[in-house]
């Protein structure tokens, strides 16, 4: 079960209201996401590892000491917050080279079309009107998938994952890739020893360990 949580999406939720934080946290947990909540935009940036220079609030630098160990797949923030608003936070995230790929979603209790279009133009993926419902959160999965896949393709992939996911890797479309992730979870609980013990698989293992680039996966799939 511990391994399963690694493949869950990690969302950073920002809201100054304790009540709203509790709500969004439960909503995200119910949608099978790991959640971290913070009560301000500046705390959110700190969590990400972006240091805000005290002398010049507009300057941003990635602190060399803070390594972002936590991988964030999505930031969901309230619009109306004291100090740094959700819009300001959105801008800062999109301006930073390291984090601009993280999708940002804005929430607001007020339906102001000008506000909504401004946020979307600045790069927000979605704009949710409060109260946010469970159904709204299903819209987030595709956005979170994008960052997750990007990170996964850079990481060395475990052999077990390759064995089961190879049939799907041939076509690199989003819809097929979505199927891969649930398989990872199923895998963790399954017995893999019998599968790996066959000679064919051993040969594949050797191939996999030398070169982990995508094209090689195709070779593996065709051989089976």
């Amino acid at each position: 079960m511990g391994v399963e949580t690694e493949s869950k999406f990690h969302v950073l939720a920002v809201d100054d209201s304790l009540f709203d934080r509790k709500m969004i946290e439960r909503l995200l947990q119910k949608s099978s996401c790991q959640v971290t909540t913070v009560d301000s935009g500046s705390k959110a940036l700190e969590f990400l590892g972006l240091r805000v220079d005290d002398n010049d609030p507009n300057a941003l630098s990635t602190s060399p000491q803070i390594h972002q160990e936590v991988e964030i797949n999505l930031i969901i923030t309230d619009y109306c917050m004291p100090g740094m608003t959700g819009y300001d936070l959105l801008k800062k995230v999109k301006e930073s080279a390291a984090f601009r790929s993280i999708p940002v979603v804005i929430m607001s209790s007020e339906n102001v079309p000008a506000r909504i279009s401004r946020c979307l133009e600045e790069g927000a993926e979605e704009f949710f009107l409060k109260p946010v419902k469970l159904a709204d959160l299903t819209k987030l999965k595709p956005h979170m998938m994008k960052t997750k896949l990007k990170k996964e393709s850079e990481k060395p992939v475990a052999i077990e994952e390759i064995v089961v996911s190879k049939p799907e890797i041939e076509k690199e479309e989003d819809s097929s890739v979505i199927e891969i992730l649930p398989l990872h979870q199923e895998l963790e609980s399954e017995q893999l020893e019998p599968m790996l013990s066959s000679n064919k698989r051993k040969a594949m293992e050797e191939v996999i360990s030398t070169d982990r680039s995508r094209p090689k996966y195709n070779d593996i799939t065709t051989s089976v």
Partner: protein
Amino acid sequence: MEKLCDYFFIYFCPNLMICKNLFIGIAISNKLYIFFFSLLLPSRRVERAMDTLIAQLQRRFCDFTISLYHQGFLDDQFTELKKLQDECSPDFVAEVVTLFFEDCEKLISNMARALDQTGNVDFKLVGSSVHQLKGSSSSVGAKRVKGLCVTLKECCDSQNYEGCVRCLQQVDIEYKTLKAKLQDLFNLEQQIVQAGGRIPQVDI
């Protein structure tokens, strides 16, 4: 008394003889009518009596819930809240509702204090407080409270002092009424669970 109890047990429910002392002890100390039932009736009759009791409680729960929606105390958002409650978070609704009522108390008192400064009312403060209250009442499904917050916000925006004071009083009454009603609802839930029943899903 002891001899009488013995006769009751031997005649009506011999299977309970083994733990009769326990039953008597509990019955006398806790006055649980459930156990008095078992003193008098055979076990199958007890089961049926319990089922009837659970069914009655469940029906009362459904009727009460439906009435809260029909009378405008609660709306769809409360239904959404219940969807978020499960085995991982079994008390979610109660926790959120408690937080909401604490918010009500704090924000209403802030607004009352601001309105008390006659001649120097900080309408901006009242406005931001009512905005927060509107948000949380909307998230909880407290329909009437939210409606009154909307009115209060309008009075505040137009700096209508009398309107603000009147509205705030209504908000105060309304949240307290809802608090009492939800307490009754939670009590009913507890009674059902204690009687060994399941809390029914109510379709509004």
